[in-house]
């Protein structure tokens, strides 16, 4: 096969319980180990194993990319009712793979073959029967379909076998054997099927240096936690953050650390604050509703200047909202939420590698600046997978100096001493010469309650100023500009997962001859005002795309800097489409050109 660049996106669509996500998972694992760059994103419903729609999309490419393609090359249907509305997302001369032998009689239009577009190529096979033949049960239809895919496109079977064995290594051997049997049954059919579609999978690229891993955002967070020296974790299950706890439940004990599943979010953050006070690196993870519950205890953390880290993976809100859909609407509560002037550090990574880095750095910052740190993800980022190559030599700082307890003889320890930097010396229980009370009441330098006007003023200032040091924190990107340098027609200012789409849109715009740049802002609090201003100076028009209704980031920027910008807001529950951003950029560029003329 002639080696050419690969950029193939495969969608697997089924009902919860069909093993849709599992199949997608094996596909990306296998492809990443074959050497391709992979990005993948799953959507699934709240129902346990009920009847909701699941889609696993996997983009396999030669070069690493940060967003999904608007159109897939292959669609596998494990449930026609769910898949039929998605047939249109397959490109011309792409393929649609489906169950050719349903067991129920179907009314007109109920079978997907009736919806395949003239330009697309249909591939039917008896998934259910092949599964039953291979394993005696119909549960492995997904594996048969996966095998068919592998056979059809001559993907190397070994990497799939390896991925399957790895996935089921804790289960009895029979499980992985049955799974492989089903996979092979599909592969055999696929290999014998004459392929008419024009989807081409090139040779895998040279594998990257360093150690390549395929991780979800949440997995990267867990990895960052472990490498960032996390000692104690407290958590309560909530979609889409649960998998962070599930991973740590395994990884922490392995590293001799502790994890506790508490009875609710309130107890979770309480534990984290307590452990942080006692000198441990402590964290919890939750989503919007949980963060709302944690508000008060978060305030105590700020007030008592206790280091702890809260990972927040956003989902659709408000209230229970859209638990399984993505959104970026918790920026306000993350940055401002809680009682009083409770300033805290908020980091928002833009890709999976960033999830890892921000997690590790969050612990450094929490200790360095004695404050709760919120790391703000969203469902799209938490659940999406990317292949990342980690530099084995890069380490996080595990021992941040707490500052010498210095005090005159006979005087007690000034835990909240006002210093030039704003950061006070800190002691933890068990240390001599560091005795002090911690409290949620306003307090003086010793930690004693005090409601004096000047004390509250000074302490408030100190609690705010110390955080500005974070803007210069080493080895982390606070903000970064991409694309054209100097003056540009349009600048895209983006945060979180949406930056990926922004970046692709920017590159496409430049291909169209629009002068365009994009800036990602990773630290949302405190806000890197200087960098953002400089960027806006260079842009004739600034566009802020984000997945919320109010334009929370746009509000933050324009509110802080008092400068005009354009908003692009979507609350579809799905990632923003590259084309939507591109359209806006085109419009702004044109409008701008008219003004110039």
């Amino acid at each position, binding site marked *: 096969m002639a080696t050419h660049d690969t950029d193939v996106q495969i969608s697997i669509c089924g009902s919860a319980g069909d093993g849709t996500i599992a199949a997608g998972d094996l596909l990306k694992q296998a492809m990443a180990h074959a050497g391709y760059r992979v990005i993948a994103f799953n959507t699934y419903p709240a129902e346990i194993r009920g009847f909701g729609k699941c889609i696993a999309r996997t983009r396999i490419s030669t070069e690493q990319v940060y967003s999904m393609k608007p159109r897939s090359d292959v669609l596998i249907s494990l449930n026609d009712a769910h898949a039929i509305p998605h047939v249109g997302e397959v490109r*011309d*001369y792409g393929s649609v793979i489906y*169950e050719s*032998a349903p067991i129920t009689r179907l*009314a*007109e239009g109920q079978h997907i*073959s009736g919806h395949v577009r*003239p330009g697309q190529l*249909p591939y*039917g096979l008896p998934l259910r029967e092949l599964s039953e033949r291979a394993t005696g049960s119909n549960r492995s239809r997904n594996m048969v379909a996966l095998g068919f895919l592998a056979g059809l496109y001559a993907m190397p079977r070994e990497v799939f076998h390896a991925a399957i064995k790895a996935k089921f290594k804790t289960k009895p051997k029979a499980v992985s054997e049955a799974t492989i049997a089903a996979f092979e049954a599909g592969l055999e059919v696929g290999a014998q099927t004459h392929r008419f579609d024009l989807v081409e999978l090139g040779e895998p690229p040279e594998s990257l240096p360093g150690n390549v891993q395929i991780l979800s955002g949440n997995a990267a967070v867990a990895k960052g936690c472990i490498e960032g020296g996390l000692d104690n974790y407290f958590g309560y299950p909530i979609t889409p953050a649960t998998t962070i706890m599930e991973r740590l439940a395994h990884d922490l004990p392995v590293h001799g650390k502790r994890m506790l599943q508490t009875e609710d979010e309130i107890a979770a953050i309480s534990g984290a604050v307590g452990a942080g006070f006692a000198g441990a690196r402590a964290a919890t993870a939750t989503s919007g509703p949980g963060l709302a519950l944690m508000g008060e205890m978060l305030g105590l953390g700020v007030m008592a200047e206790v280091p702890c880290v809260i990972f927040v993976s956003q989902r659709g809100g408000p209230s229970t909202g859209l638990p399984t859909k993505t959104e970026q609407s918790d920026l306000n509560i993350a940055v401002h939420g809680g009682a009083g002037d409770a300033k805290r550090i908020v980091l928002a990574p833009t890709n999976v590698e960033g999830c890892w880095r921000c997690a590790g750095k969050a612990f450094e910052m929490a200790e360095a600046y004695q404050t709760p740190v919120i790391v703000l993800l969203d469902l799209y980022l938490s659940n999406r997978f990317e292949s990342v190559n980690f530099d084995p030599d890069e380490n996080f700082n595990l021992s941040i100096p707490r500052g010498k307890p210095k005090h005159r003889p006979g005087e007690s320890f000034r835990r909240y001493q006002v210093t030039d930097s704003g950061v006070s010396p800190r002691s933890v229980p068990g240390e001599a010469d560091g005795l002090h009370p911690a409290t949620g009441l306003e307090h003086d330098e010793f930690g004693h309650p005090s409601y004096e006007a000047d004390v509250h003023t000074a302490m408030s200032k100190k609690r705010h100023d110390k955080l500005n040091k974070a803007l210069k924190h080493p080895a982390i990107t606070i903000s970064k500009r991409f694309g054209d340098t100097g003056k540009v027609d349009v600048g895209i200012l983006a945060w979180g997962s949406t930056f990926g789409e922004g970046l692709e849109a920017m590159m496409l715009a430049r291909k169209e001859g629009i002068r365009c740049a994009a800036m990602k802002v990773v630290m949302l609090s405190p806000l890197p005002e200087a960098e953002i201003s400089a960027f806006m100076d260079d842009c004739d028009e600034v566009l802020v795309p984000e997945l919320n209704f109010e334009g929370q980031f746009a509000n933050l920027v324009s509110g802080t800097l008092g400068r005009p910008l354009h908003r692009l807001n979507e609350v579809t529950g799905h990632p923003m489409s590259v084309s939507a951003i591109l359209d806006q950029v085109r419009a702004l560029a044109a409008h701008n050109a008219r003004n110039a003329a």
Partner: protein
Amino acid sequence: MSTPLHYVIIGNGMAGNAAAAVLREHDPECRITIISAGALLFYNRYDLPNVFRGTESWVDLLVHPPEYYERNRITVRRKSPVIDVDSKRQVLVLAHREELHYDRLLLATGGEPYLPEKLKDSRPLMHNFGTYRAAMTMRAALPDGGRVAMLGGDVMGLDLARALIETGHQVSVVTDERTFWPHEVDDQERPRYYEALERMGIEVRDQGEVDRIVEGAAGMPARHITFACGEDLYADVVMPFFGIAPNVDFMSNSGADMERGILVDGHLKSSSENIWAAGDVSQIWSPKSKSYRFYYGYRNVRRMGETAALNMCGEAVEFDTNDDDVIEIDEAGRIQSPFWEHD
């Protein structure tokens, strides 16, 4: 306004597609569904020999681009063999158990290569050329300059033979009463035609009954044919060309009368309400020969499709064929068959 009629066409070949075009022209509102067992849009089988003349992708063989079907609102349901037709409920059952209602139905499933019962055991050792896929498989099996043994040798076969010779391969035709099918060449005439074939560079083996076909011995061509008379023949590919047998098994419950094909009247209407037939599948009543007979060839088939469509739209058009297409030898001594011509 009344709900538009649903015209369903079983068969994605010349007849079916010709009919679809006419239907759309005469009934802009109607629903049109073409049902096909294959995976591809309509391509021209007459162009298949071009896979030896450099055609690399099936896309180049497509008669209409995908947009054509979108534009004309013609649904093409591929990979959907029909397993049953219930003419009382006017419902089709597709292999995947989906039921499809039709108001008017056109059968245009064409035929499949006919294979005499006695040769069926050897089927695994033979290649066909009826579909793009079969063509590609056959091409892959044939080495450069390799030899093809054509059993029978109907006009489609001979057309392929021309392409093979032209591209430096060798062809042996093992004659049979069906050689030159569907033309009828009587025994006195035959020798002349065999000579003409040989002038085309084709080896003619007028040997009588095939005794058996087996894998060729190591180092020899892939197939070894031995004849009842004891003679034998080595070839890389063996292909049966005994003409076409209509494809009508799924019609057994349709109530439409059948013999070898679907029996239809001059308007191509079957004995069953709302069912018409066109192309190689239709056995048409011929007042002249007082029997039900078949008409073959690109032009006949297309005309059948168009005629059937007009009648389905409520007109009353007789299918007329210009007198039977005849095979002849031109002054240059070359065989001329009207079935080799198509547009």
